[in-house]
């Protein structure tokens, strides 16, 4: 696989096939923790960490255990257990080894288990079409796309919370409409790549 192909895969995962705006994965944290910039970045970093690790592990498990023994139907159960225990291990590891990092993204880690982006990404890469390198690039680039969008979105939300929004639309409804406008913009990156 050439460098060009890998770059195309990475850029389309970040921009065109954006994990939030085009695949709708991880909408809950996207709306839940995007009201402040600081927490959005913390969540985004935690998501990059977990998605990349869990997707590569899921791909490995699929390729070397599930597929050879024809147990593809067990994928959902195996992946969710991998993700739940991985998040637990990362949490304990960070608490012991890097307490400062734990302080900034520790509270987001338990939330990530039920982030559908993590299981969704594991499901996307755990197919024979991906290899170790492309599954890594795909999951890493997608989660970078998550960080990018949640960061832009949180900056917008900080502004719009002070704007003259009709009362029933304050909060989540206007945020969803704004996400729709962002999705329109990101869909237009199709022409770039």
């Amino acid at each position, binding site marked *: 696989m050439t460098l060009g192909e890998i770059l195309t895969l990475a850029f389309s995962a970040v921009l065109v096939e954006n994990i939030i705006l085009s695949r709708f994965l991880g909408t809950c944290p996207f709306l839940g923790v995007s009201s402040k910039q600081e927490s959005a970045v913390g969540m985004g970093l935690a998501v990059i960490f977990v998605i990349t690790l869990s997707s590569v592990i899921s791909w490995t498990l699929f390729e070397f255990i599930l597929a050879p023994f024809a147990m593809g139907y067990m994928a959902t159960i195996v992946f969710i257990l991998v993700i739940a225990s991985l998040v637990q291990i990362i949490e304990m590891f960070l608490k012991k080894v890097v307490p400062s990092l734990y302080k900034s993204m520790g509270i987001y880690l338990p939330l990530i288990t039920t982030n559908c982006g993590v299981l969704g990404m594991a499901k996307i890469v755990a197919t024979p079409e991906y290899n170790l390198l492309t599954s890594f690039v795909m999951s890493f680039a997608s989660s970078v796309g998550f960080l990018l969008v949640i960061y832009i979105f949180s900056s917008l939300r900080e502004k719009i919370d002070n704007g003259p929004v009709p009362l*029933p639309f304050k909060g989540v409804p206007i945020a969803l409409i704004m996400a729709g406008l962002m*999705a*329109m913009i990101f869909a237009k990156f199709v022409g770039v790549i």
Partner: protein
Amino acid sequence: MTKRENFLKGFWKENQILVSLLGLCAPLAITTTVENALGMSAILMFVLILSNVIISAIRKIVPNQIRIPIFIVVIATLVTLAEMIMAAFLPSLSKSLGMWISLVVVNCIILGRAEAFASKNNILDSLIDAIGMVLGYALVLILISIIREILGTGGITVWGDLKFNLNDLFNRSEDNKFPFFSHFFVTPAGAYIILGLLIGFANIINRKKVVTK
């Protein structure tokens, strides 16, 4: 809370999408066609009703510290069952829903009901709660998909033969079609905007009720 209130709360007062804002991924992703929304509703119904009943039945023997992993395993097993049944009997629907069937595992409403209701109440109440909640959720899913499919394509097609199209209905010719149907509503951007508007309108209605009380 009476059984009737327990059943009805899922439709409006605690509607998981419009009021509690839980599980918003599925209503955005799979509501491009009414057919998908119906399929998703059926899967959710199967999983939520069984998971609520099972979790309520085992609630006294599950140690409190590890209840969440146990709930997730129960839910994942049910979802895998649903996945296999779907692939066997409705292969085309199972293909168009794709990975969203397995993502029911992490749909907030399933774990949310398990944690908030089934782990604290008896089996009958949990069953009633599950049926009410999932019907409320399904109605919103179907409503969104009807809006999106009509605005996006000008008509509705369910299972190939049950269909209507507004352009045909009013005898509009190919170059004289209604101008307001746009592919935009089938795209992700349309999904976000329609869901945002629906939640906003639900808030307006809820506010009026509060005022008249």
